């Protein structure tokens, strides 16, 4: 009953407002905003049965300091697990593990081939023009292994304004945080170019009352005289991120379109300490460095009934992680870990879309990726010959996809699909999927969507070859997913529009890979195919836009998920209480909402997110350290545009954690209280 109440509460609230709309005639400019709600009476063949949700452009453009994790926290009901800005941020899609969500940017996988997941904090939102989520089975149309789903990110040359344009944003915020963003673009008749630069630096040393520690005072005899909770600073949370993205587009004729993108990034991050850390941060070293270059060349050929897309890509990443202790500045630090890894992926793909008639579509894709990874721990290499073996792994990955889409009658769409993957010498069985949709009634475009598919996630290079502990005998994780849901969309007199949907999903994942020291005390952590997991639940979303007059725009969106994710065992032994319990760090309920109000030159954006409690123990016992408390997060931004002869200017003031909520998403890692950011954006007209 509880999820239904949640759903009703959020959806009713959002429904209530637009239905009171008065209908006026609207000027042309408002049509653009209404398109944010993707209302369409026509159902494209490519979307048959597909559960896809788009992240709001308002969110994407709201703030240059946002990463993808911020976007997803407020713009979806996915669970984002993070340790504060600039720290590791992973995602749980439909109650699955982070490695079960595939993240693609312009067709390149952003998932680490070694770890299997993507750190969302490393993806700035302003490097993304379009973002959407493919839920569960729907992800197999783009990529295999997305047992939870896939996040599809991309840039879009078609959004570029004609001629030269320049945008510069400078933000300054609490805790010595500075964000800079520069975008220059040119679009001519045949070609275009975009350059984006992003730089973020922060001490990130927010202060908090540490209720998990006592500060003690003693008398001369050493007897305790006073204890109190200390005010402390997040003393190891500094970060410095630099990104550069260069894109070139060439369209010599109506048939061919070429594009070239290079994304380089250099990151330095300290990893925050736990709030139960009693060491002096000046002596402790816990930091990461990363340099990555991604390049992709794409050629799209559009013939009358055929679209062919050829892509070549490369990703090269160098990472370093140091963990150690330095007694003082005059001595060399002692390291427990000095991990160095480098991996390179070469990619080539060909996607062909054939549209023989308005009722038929056939799509095929062949993708080849060559993964090369090297990893070593300098400390282990020096100390123990048996551990001096560096991880050096190469893997050729092939993936083939074939799908047919058929609309035998206007109301019905049917789409069978097959994916096949070969990872090194391992071949996954064929991954079949079937997607169906049916337009129940044109009133509100009420459409039933359903799908069923299998899916496999191959073990990562670390799972197979990590030294010590990798297990080359691992089997792929195997998923079976069923989906059924309803989508709707209403629009009226060009002044308002609403779209939404609710979906039931049911997934069984077997051979779940679990890293444990299976041999007992002081043994090596190693992965094994252990559990079967049943992840099921409800996902829903609703979006609405209302433009009663030329000066007013009201945009609302909300998401809600109920995601039980249950360990079905087998139990390790009779004392194992984890069977039948929710997986750790997966909230049962999550919700988010964004309200955007534009009035003349003023804007007000309110963002809200909620996660229910998360268990930290597989047995779900509600002990003091067994539960991370639920929380509600609110950010608000007030903006004002100024139009001058030489430049358009926008000033924004953002208040994050508006109600100074004391919260954690990961136990032991405090999050900042109320904090502020001021942002100035300039769009010079001089180039126009």
């Amino acid at each position: 009953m509880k999820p239904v109440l949640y759903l009703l509460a959020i959806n009713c609230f959002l429904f209530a407002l637009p239905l009171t709309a008065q209908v006026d005639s609207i000027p042309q400019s408002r049509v653009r905003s209404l398109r944010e709600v993707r209302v369409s009476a026509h159902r494209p063949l490519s979307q048959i049965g597909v559960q896809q949700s788009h992240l709001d452009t308002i969110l994407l453009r709201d703030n240059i300091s946002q990463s993808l994790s911020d976007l997803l926290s407020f713009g979806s009901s996915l669970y984002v697990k993070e340790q504060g800005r600039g720290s590791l941020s992973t995602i749980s899609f439909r109650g699955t593990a982070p490695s079960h969500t595939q993240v693609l940017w312009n067709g390149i996988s952003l998932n680490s081939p070694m770890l299997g997941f993507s750190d969302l904090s490393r993806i700035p939102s302003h490097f993304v023009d379009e973002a959407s989520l493919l839920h569960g089975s729907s992800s197999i149309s783009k990529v295999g292994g997305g047992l939870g789903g896939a996040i599809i990110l991309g840039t879009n040359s078609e959004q570029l304004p004609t001629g030269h344009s320049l945008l510069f944003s400078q933000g300054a915020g609490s805790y010595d945080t500075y964000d800079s963003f520069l975008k220059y673009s040119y679009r001519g008749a045949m070609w275009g170019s975009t350059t984006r630069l992003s730089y973020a630096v922060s001490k990130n040393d927010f202060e908090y009352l540490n209720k998990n520690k006592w500060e003690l005072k003693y008398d001369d005899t050493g007897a305790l005289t006073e204890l109190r909770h200390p005010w402390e600073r997040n003393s190891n949370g500094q970060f410095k991120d630099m990104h550069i993205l260069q894109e070139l587009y060439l369209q010599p004729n109506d048939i061919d379109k070429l594009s070239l993108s290079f994304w380089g990034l250099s990151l330095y991050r300290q990893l925050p300490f736990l709030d139960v850390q009693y060491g002096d941060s000046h002596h402790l070293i816990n930091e990461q460095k990363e340099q990555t270059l991604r390049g992709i060349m794409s050629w799209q050929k559009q013939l009358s009934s055929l679209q062919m897309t050829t892509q070549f890509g490369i990703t090269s990443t160098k990472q370093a992680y140091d963990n150690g202790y330095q007694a003082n500045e005059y001595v060399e630090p002692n390291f427990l870990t000095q991990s160095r890894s480098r991996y390179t992926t070469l990619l080539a793909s060909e996607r062909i879309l054939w549209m023989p008639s308005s009722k038929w579509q056939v799509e095929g894709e062949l993708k080849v990726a060559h993964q090369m990874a090297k990893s070593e721990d300098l400390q282990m290499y020096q100390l123990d010959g048996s551990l001096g073996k560096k991880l050096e792994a190469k893997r050729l990955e092939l993936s083939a996809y074939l799908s047919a889409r058929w609309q035998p009658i206007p109301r019905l769409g049917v789409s069978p699909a097959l994916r096949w993957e070969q990872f090194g010498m391992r071949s996954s069985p064929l991954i079949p999927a079937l997607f169906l949709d049916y337009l129940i009634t044109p009133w509100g475009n009420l459409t039933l969507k359903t799908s069923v598919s299998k899916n496999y996630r191959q073990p990562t290079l670390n799972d197979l070859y990590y030294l010590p502990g990798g297990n080359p005998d691992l089997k792929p994780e195997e998923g079976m997913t069923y989906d059924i849901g309803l989508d709707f969309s209403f629009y009226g007199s060009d002044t308002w529009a609403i779209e939404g949907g609710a979906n039931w999903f049911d997934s069984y994942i077997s051979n779940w890979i679990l890293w444990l020291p299976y041999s007992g005390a002081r043994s090596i952590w190693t992965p094994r195919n252990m559990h079967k997991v049943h992840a099921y639940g409800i996902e829903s979303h609703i979006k609405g836009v209302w433009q009663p007059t030329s000066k007013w725009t009201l945009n609302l969106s909300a998401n809600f998920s109920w995601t039980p994710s249950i360990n079905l065992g087998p139990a390790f032994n009779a004392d194992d209480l984890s069977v039948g319990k929710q997986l750790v760090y997966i909230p049962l309920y999550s919700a988010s909402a964004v309200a955007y109000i534009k009035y003349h030159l003023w804007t007000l954006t309110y963002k809200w997110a909620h996660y229910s409690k998360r268990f930290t123990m597989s047995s779900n016992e509600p002990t003091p350290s067994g539960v991370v408390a639920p929380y509600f997060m609110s950010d608000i931004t007030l903006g004002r545009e100024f139009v001058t002869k030489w430049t358009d200017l926008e000033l924004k003031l953002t208040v994050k954690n508006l109600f100074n909520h004391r919260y954690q998403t990961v136990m032991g890692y405090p999050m900042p209280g109320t904090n502020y950011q001021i942002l100035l954006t300039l769009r010079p007209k001089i180039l126009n």
Partner: protein
Amino acid sequence: MRFYKKKLWEQIIFSTLFILFICIPFSCQVEYPEVSEGVRMPTKAVLVLSEGNFQGANASLEVYDPSGSEEVITHAFRKANGIPLGDVAQSITIRGDEAWICVNTSKVIFHIDLSTLKLKGLVKNIPKPRYMHFVNDTKAYVTHLEYPHISIINPKNYQKIGEVKTFMSSDKYAGNALSQSTEEMVAVGKYLFVSCWSYQRTVLVVDMEQDKVVKEIEVGYQPSSMSQDKDGKLWVLCGGAYYKNDGLPSLYRIDTETFEATKVAEIQNLSGDAFHNASNLVMVPDGSSFYFLSVNHIYKMGIYDTVAPSKPAIELPPGNHAYALAIAPESGDIYVADAIDYSQRGVVYRYSADLGEPKDSYRVGIIPGSFAFYSK
């Protein structure tokens, strides 16, 4: 600039929306109460220290009364002090009516009163403390992970008063000695024997009068637990390299007078498990034999045996992940901790010294890793 004049209905809608959004988070705030109950310690107690998960901040101390009531006080440290124990609790050392708890990743040593478990003081900013050994009331040694010194602290004022450099100039690891770590300690006369576990193969001999390493004894891969037998010999259990072909777990016996080490036996991989290991050597009270853990089984070996046992001494429940082992000094009862899936509260099994059926079992914290026995 011409100001736009708002209509009344626009003002009402704008204000209502703003108020509604402001109200949502206020109505939903949830606060968890702090935990700060007192603890009444039993006359006899088994203290079980659970490591918790690395970076999980969920270490805990449980107290078990073995003398009839068999009551378990869970999260005893938190109940007594209102704060969590920290991240990766490594060892507990009892001295009189007080205990000292080394919390490895939190870099702290807690000093508690054993009548209430209330905090008496703490040593903070101490690099990854592993074990503690008291020389007297004003001097104690603390070993560390990833720090090439043994710290000397004054337990009276919680201050560090010195260090013992843990590598010697002739040390073959001198080139990278900065990574040397130290582990368990056993005192014999004026000498302190210190095992160097993490990726190393030495036992150091520290002269406690000079606070100096006087000898380095080479043993097998990754020596950890040590115990002295009734003949005064020091037994060292080496966990072995992580791959079976690179160095099996082994048992060494050190003559504490000549510092000569003898390899007594290699511990064969009887489980077939790819990752073989051995840990937790504990001597029986009379010093005539000892137990140890290897791949989730308990083995027993006499001090005059020359071959490692081929069969487990106790049949533990199938599917267990045996993580810690201890013998009660008075009763000789054997305590074995099962970490189960390393992500839920583990279970301790208590066997009588005659190795029959378990006398008792009870739940403790996550990854129970060490025991201490206390009687008033």
